[in-house]
C-alpha cells in the first residue's frame, strides 16, 4: 500500500486553479520528486499535503488515514514533516532549541510535572536531548548546537530545518526546494543527505528546480504544469517525455 495517496486534489484561490485534479501515490521507502516550471503548483501541493491550505476538493490518505481536514500539527503527529522553501527557523531559539521544539509532539509530560521537574520529566528531557543530538549529528550541526540559529550560514539553516523535521520522527519527509540558494558543492552534499535519510527508512517527497539533484536522487519523478500532472515515471523516462520537454523548453525544444 502506498504511504501517501493523493486523490483528485484541486486547490483554487478565487478564480486561479493552482492544483487541478491531481492524483499521485508515494510508495514507502522511495524518493519521489515533484518538478515543474515556476508557478506549476509544487509548493502549493506541499502546503495542501501538510495542511497549511485546505484543499478545495479531493482526498489525501496518509498511512491508511484520511488526513485532509486535519490541522498541520496533527499530520506531524501521524508522521509527516516538512521544510520550507523560504527558510523558517525560529530566530529567537538556539540551534538546539529549534530541534528540541520539534520533539514536543513526541513527549507526554504536562505543565505541572514540568514545574516540579519530576523524575519522569528529567527522563523525558534526557531522551529528547539524545534524539536532538542525534538529529543534529546526522546533518552535521552538532558542533554548532549552541549557536543562535540566525547566525548560521544560509545552507546550514536549511540543514537545521531538515534536522528539525527529522526530530519529529517522521515517516514521510517533504522537502520544499531544499537546494534553493545552495552552491553546487552544497547541493551535491544535499543529494547524499537525502539518500541517507531514505536509508533510515524515511520516505522523501522532494520538490526542486535543480535538475541534476532531482535526476540523481529520485526513484520516481512527477512532473506538474499549471497544476496538472503531465508525466510520472523514473527520471530517465521522464527526461525524454515530449510533453515534459515542451513544458520546460517550449515547442522549439522538441525540434533540436
Amino acid at each position, binding site marked *: 500500500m502506498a504511504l501517501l495517496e493523493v486523490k483528485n486534489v484541486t486547490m483554487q484561490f478565487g478564480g486561479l486553479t493552482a492544483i487541478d485534479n491531481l492524483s499521485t501515490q508515494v510508495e514507502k521507502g522511495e524518493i519521489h520528486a515533484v518538478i515543474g516550471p515556476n508557478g506549476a503548483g509544487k509548493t502549493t501541493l506541499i502546503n495542501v499535503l501538510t495542511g497549511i491550505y485546505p484543499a478545495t476538493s479531493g482526498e489525501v490518505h496518509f498511512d491508511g488515514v484520511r488526513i485532509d481536514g486535519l490541522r498541520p*500539527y496533527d499530520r506531524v503527529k501521524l508522521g509527516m514533516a516538512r521544510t520550507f522553501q523560504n527558510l523558517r527557523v525560529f530566530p529567537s531559539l538556539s540551534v538546539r532549541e529549534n530541534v528540541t521544539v*520539534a520533539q*514536543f*509532539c513526541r513527549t507526554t509530560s504536562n505543565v505541572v510535572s514540568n*514545574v516540579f521537574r519530576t523524575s519522569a*520529566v528529567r527522563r523525558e528531557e534526557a531522551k529528547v536531548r539524545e534524539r536532538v543530538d542525534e538529529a543534529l549529528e546526522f546533518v552535521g550541526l552538532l558542533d554548532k548546537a549552541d549557536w543562535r540559529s540566525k547566525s548560521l550560514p544560509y545552507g546550514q539553516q536549511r540543514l537545521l530545518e531538515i534536522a528539525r523535521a527529522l526530530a519529529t520522527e517522521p515517516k514521510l519527509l517533504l522537502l520544499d526546494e531544499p537546494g534553493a540558494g545552495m552552491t553546487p558543492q552544497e547541493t551535491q552534499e544535499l543529494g547524499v543527505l537525502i539518500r541517507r535519510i531514505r536509508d533510515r527508512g524515511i520516505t522523501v517527497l522532494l520538490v526542486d528546480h535543480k535538475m541534476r539533484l532531482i535526476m540523481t536522487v529520485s526513484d520516481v519523478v512527477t512532473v506538474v504544469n499549471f497544476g496538472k500532472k503531465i508525466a510520472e515515471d523514473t527520471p530517465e523516462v521522464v527526461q525524454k517525455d515530449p510533453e515534459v520537454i515542451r513544458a520546460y523548453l517550449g515547442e522549439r525544444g522538441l525540434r533540436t
Partner: protein
Amino acid sequence: MSMRTLSFKDKTLIGIIVVLAALYPVITNSYMKFVLITGVVNAILVVGMHFIFGLTGQLHLAMSAFWGVGSYAFALSITKMGWPFWPAVGFAAVLVGLLGLLLGFPTLRLKGFYLAITTIGFGEIVRLILLNWSPVTGGVFGIAGIPRPTIGPLRFGSNTSFYYLILVMLGLLTLAARMIEHSKYGAALRAVHDDELAAEAVGLNTTMLKVLAFVLCGIYAGIGGAMYASLMQYISPEVYTLERSQMLAMMLVIGGMGSLPGAIMGSVLLTFLPEVLRFLQQWYLAVYGAIVIVIIVYRPTGLWGAWEMLVQRLSAAFGRRGNTHGTA
C-alpha cells in the same frame, strides 16, 4: 541544583528577591513602604503577563479584567460566603484561569492589534460588570472588610509581615514561571512567538499553547488580584481600568520583553516612578511619559538588557568572563 548550574538570569532573580527583602527596612517613610508592597503585588501580575505577552508575544490588554475578577472572586468568597483565606485565593486563581480559557479560545485567530483591541473590549466589559452588577459586586461602593492573610496561628496583619509574605509568594511564583520557561513549554511558546506557521509545521498545537499561556496568565492574575484585595482590605471598580492594563504591559516592556528578571525590575521601578516624580506636581505625567519613551527608544531591551550589558562590561573590566549566555 548547585550554584554552578544557575544561569546569569537565575542569579539575577535571586539577587532581586534578596534586594527587595533588604530594601523594606531601609525605607523609612511608611507611605513609600506601602508603595513597595504594591510594586511586589504588581510584579506577580507582570510575571503572569510574561507568559502571554513576553514569551508568546500576544498583546494582551485585558490584564485589569483578570486582576479585577481575581480581586472580586477572592473578596466575595471571603466576605459573602465565609471561606477561609487560602481556599479563597485558590478559588480566585482557578476562576481567572478559566477566564483565560474563555478569552483565549475565541481570540486565538486574532493577532497583533486585532487581539489588542478585542482584549481591550473584554476588559471594559468586565469593568462595567463590576461597576453595575451592584447586588453582587457592591457597585461603586465596592467591597470592604477584606481580611489580611493568616497561616494557622500566624497573622499577617501588619504591612511588614504582609510584605515578606507576598515577597515569598513572588519568589515561588517566579520560580514556577522560571521552571516553565526552561521546560519544553518555554521553548514551544517562544517558537509560537517567532513563527506560528513553522510552529504548526513542527507539530506544535499553537491553539493549545496560546490557550495555555492565557490560562497561566490568568492563574497569576487571580493570585495577584486576591493579594491586592487583601493588601487594600477594600476594593472598588475604579482601579481595574484599561489604564492599569497598559501600565502593567509597560512594566513588562520597560523591564525587557521576554525576561523574568526584567518583568520584576520593571514592575517595581514603574510603581515607584510616579511617587518619585510627585514633586513635579502637574508636570509629573509629562516627565513620566518622557522617561518611558527615552527608555523604549534608547534601551529597547529594557532594564534587563541594560543590566546584562553593565555586568558584562564590569566583568570585562575586571578581567573575568561573565557567564551571560542566557537564552534570548
